[in-house]
């Protein structure tokens, strides 16, 4: 498995939407390299014939009847909003061309 470097971390930070300073990227790259190294045995542990487990206790077909339940008022919906206008959540521009 490839070692994780600073550029990888920068790419991952972009994917994860976390702004990172150059210093943070360096530090994180160092720490992650150690962690990734310590977990790499995992990829060799199981053969191809071993199925993956995504749920510890297997259940199937857990459904809800199509019956309307509780709703929020707009006030409740927006109660934690950092910014709002006209009963809607307000966010800065999506594109950088204003």
């Amino acid at each position, binding site marked *: 498995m490839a070692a994780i470097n600073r550029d990888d971390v920068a790419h991952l930070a972009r994917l994860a939407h976390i702004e990172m300073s150059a210093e943070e990227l360096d530090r994180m790259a160092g720490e992650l390299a*150690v962690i990734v190294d*310590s977990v790499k045995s995992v990829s060799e542990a199981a053969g191809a014939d071993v199925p993956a487990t995504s749920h*510890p206790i297997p259940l199937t077909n857990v459904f809800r009847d199509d019956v309307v339940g509780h709703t929020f008022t707009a006030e409740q919906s927006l109660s934690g909003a950092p910014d709002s206008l006209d009963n809607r959540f307000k966010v800065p521009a999506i594109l*950088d061309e204003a």
Partner: protein
Amino acid sequence: MTELNPAGTDAGTLIRLSAAQLAAKLAAGEVTSVEITRACLDRIAQVDGGERGINAFLHVNAEEALAVAAEVDAIRAAGGPEADALHELAGVPIAVKDLIVTVGQPTTAGSKILEGWHSPYDATVVARLRAAKMPILGKTNLDEFAMGSSTEHSAYGPTRNPWDLDRIPGGSGGGSAAAVAAFEAPLALGTDTGGSIRQPGAVTGTVGVKPTYGSVSRYGAIAMASSLDQIGPVTRTVLDSALLHQVIGGHDPKDSTSLPEPLADLVAAARTGNVEGLRIGIIKELHGEGYQAGVENRFNEALELLKDAGATIVEVSCPNFQYALGAYYLIMPSEASSNLAKFDGVRFGLRVLPTDPPLTIERVMAATRAAGFGDEVKRRIILGTYALSAGYYDAYYGSAQKVRTLVQRDFNAAFEQADVLISPTAPTTAFKLGEKLDDPLAMYLNDVATIPANLAGVPGLSLPGGLADEDGLPVGIQLLAPAREDARLYRVGAVLESLLEAKWGGPLLAQAPDLAGAPALEAQEAK
């Protein structure tokens, strides 16, 4: 097992009573819920704050707790069917880990990104506490988003271990464990993703249970790793854990992974403890090398006691547990990276604007998450993003899911040979604050014995096993049972607890330092 209804109703006595004992006194009319609740609140005021305070609580909910207590007292005083219908634990106060959402109190998850946020809905477990009319004392401290093993990763300062204020109370649920150990609350709720209930229990001399995955609804517990998280009780006795588990457990239609079947009678299991003829399996891979000598000694003594009580001790091997920690540190951050994506400054919580243009939503999200998340959270998000990213998924996340299957198979094989499994809960006693803060990997190793249960979904219980010879700090003993067999943990745990308490001449916590007797100033000077 300790006496059910000891004499005395002064505050000093009340705070030290177990929930079962308090319930008995309430039922007998010897004490009111307001008295109990006030005693807890006074204790919190006395030991929790200040420079050298425990800092178990992030929020104290005094007014509402007392109101609920008064309501219970009024119902009891009035008598009649409403009084008869009161839950056994009605009026017994409880603390709630601040990862669990509550209406009327802030929920921070120990993070700056949620500072000041109030949930408009209650977690299912909180709704069940309310239905049982248990006063909620407040919200307890934790590692940010439950990511850590020491509670040092809280954005609101670390919690101190009541046994030694310079040591960690374990994590992530250090606040709940310390609150119970410091007699601030008889009961608390924790969450356990890789040991966050059991390891704090071990290092604070308290009891903690991670139920079978799906036994307790996760609805309203802020998710770290959805397939591993489980809410459970944090208490001072095994019976109290059973009582609390019975309140919060059982099917919840709001959680698709909630077990459909009704909960077994866990309280009865705790009350009728018996190990006669039971096969108890020592997991070869979970003791010995890497475990502190004092931990090993207490563990071996516990085995002797169980053997004397009629249990058969067998040794089982779980060879794939060697991969469990690695698999955990791939699955947990992967799921966490996804679960924590919603914290973006759009709908709730913190919003931070970038310091330079352009002011776009993407940059606001990135600046908010940069400022709102601590280092450990960022580390895990980046690690999880890596493990799920194109080209790495199969090698990391995919492989880890396969290891999960192997760990499950190991458990299945072990449970063919043994009815319950036993191990130390944590390899060491509480370490010093700051000791492992700069070494994430060393911190992660603390979870080596607790993680397999989360990967396989099986239940685990940690109870005090005594104090380590070399440092005089609590050691935890972990019991593990097959999935859906939580009752076995209570049955065996209650026996071991009573055997140990008989040996110690009372609860282990009776040996803990008297916090109230150690003036904060003196302690500060000593520092």
